[in-house]
């Protein structure tokens, strides 16, 4: 359910077993003379820095921008952000690994987050996750992740596909979702949250 496998007896947390590679140089703030940054990314990061009184505030938007360019927060992506922001790559790694939405390994280009928190799981989210996993098995383009509450318990069980919310998913929707994605269509369009009206009978002047 999480990026990092839960440990039980004998299992491992990635990174905990990693020693430093003593053949590498220490990693300070990258020297702009030595790092190439795609101009578009540089411009986006610089614009983000300009929005805040302190440039460091742009760390999340800058990492998000780099992730869009590189597909994940690769060491190279982080170094580029560090170079533009004049921070160390280590600092940015520390930030990136704190947040669930930064990918620390290469992933498929479609993000499919299934909310498996309490309200959704009461309405079958765990089964939904399994169905999508089965339907998408072996498709490297689909980055299926089980996510904590996505704030859409009204459409439980639900998914966020490339950051668009859909729900409630019923029988067969998991299969259709994967097929739509694989066919390059908008997935399960009629289940989009954007189409949903308020549940409150008094909300619309009743």
């Amino acid at each position, binding site marked *: *359910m999480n990026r990092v496998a839960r440990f039980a007896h004998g299992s491992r947390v990635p990174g905990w077993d990693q020693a430093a590679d003593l053949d590498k140089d220490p990693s300070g703030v990258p020297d702009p003379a030595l790092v190439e940054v795609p101009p578009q990314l540089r411009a986006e990061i610089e614009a983000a820095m300009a929005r*805040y009184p302190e440039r460091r505030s742009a760390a999340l938007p800058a990492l998000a921008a780099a992730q869009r360019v590189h597909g994940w927060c690769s060491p190279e992506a982080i170094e580029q952000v560090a170079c533009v922001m004049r921070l160390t790559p280590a600092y940015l790694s520390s930030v990136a690994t704190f947040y*669930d939405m930064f990918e620390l390994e290469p992933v498929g280009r479609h993000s499919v987050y299934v909310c498996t*928190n*309490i309200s959704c799981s009461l309405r079958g989210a765990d089964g939904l996750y399994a169905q999508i996993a089965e339907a998408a098995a072996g498709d490297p383009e689909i980055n299926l992740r089980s996510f904590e509450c996505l704030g859409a318990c009204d459409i439980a069980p639900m998914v966020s596909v490339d950051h668009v919310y859909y729900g409630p998913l019923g029988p067969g929707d998991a299969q259709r979702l994967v097929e739509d994605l694989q066919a390059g269509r908008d997935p399960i369009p009629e289940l989009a949250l954007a189409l949903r009206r308020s549940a409150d009978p008094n909300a619309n002047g009743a």
Partner: protein
Amino acid sequence: MSQTILLADIDEPGLATLEVYERRGGYQSMRKALAMEPAAVIAELDASGLRGRGGAGFPAGRKAAFLPKGDLDKYLVCNADESEPGTFKDRELMQKNPHMLIEGIVIAAHAAGASRAFIYVRGEYEAQARILDSALAEALDAGYIGERILGGEFSCSVVLHRGAGAYICGEETGLLDSLEGKRGNPRLKPPFPAVQGLYQGPTLINNVETLSTMPYIIRIGGAEYAKLGVANGAGTKVVSVSGHVQRPGNYEVELGTPSREIIFGLAGGPPEGRRVKLWFPGGSSSPVLTEADLDIPYDFDSLAKAGTMLGSGAIIVVDDSTPVLDVALKLAKFYRHESCGKCTPCREGTSWTVRMLERIASGEATPMDLDIMASVQEHIIGNCLCVLGDAMAMPIGSMIVKFREELESHMEYQQLAGAA
């Protein structure tokens, strides 16, 4: 439920655009507020009795009044990191009526003397963030935010900041660290954000719903607003109802409405043939209530009296088809995943609790483990840096107390099954 303020005509086509919002009288409250002295705006908020809608329920007027006066760089931060399981009211408000929030932000910024405002929206709400992006652009073009608003003296920039997936950033100081580009670890308090918040400056932090309510309060006056709801719990509240109910969704009710009416009357109650086993009145962090508590009026004080809290105003209903252990385990795993790791009791306590629950689930536990687990929850409560640890320990603790029998019979069953 007689009054609908926040959800009024929420599905009107184009409400998210400036044109429709203005046609409906939008930004008039802001004009009114900007013509008032900040202290007068605070007085109205005070008089309204509005309490924060994010979870802590702190009086909104008093919070704004805490900021030091004078020529300092002050900040307003809108907490739109709605992450409390079961809560989705801010999402609907931002998505469907973003200008109401922006108007509230300018009113609050004026009251607090803040010249920079930030909306911290959780990264998962990308669709809502895009809607806010366009609304902010419209508002900027119209001169409602930015330099010299309405041509007057007051200036306030509003920047939308997207989070990246961390529940703890809903905690106000964790949010501030995150907004400063750091890991979203909560800070030690004091100093409180009103004194030393964003970039070390005095900072007012309010929830989306709280801010979205402000235009209405300014429009009708604080005293008038205070007539809604109950004593020490004025106004209406958008309640997110989810879980085992027939019509999950956001419902705006006056505070003090009987809980039964919300769960059954509005949300339709559990599916046919099922009964309410337990319910969370204020998000997953609130101690659980049972069927016997359904008639408690839904307001701050009544829920507190029942040993729980209104929290973010999210009711999660669990019916009798679901073992309490499943709920506890789901919950504990969530808090373990979301614990930032900064302080010991939360980091270690959430993990220990999960492992004990897993042992119960697999039938390797004894009733003594329930005592240990209960004691671990007690050791977490009140000893952590922020409230996340308590947010797990309180509901888990309440489940051990209220459903001990079920948990013990589960153990017994598992052991018998194992023996067989």
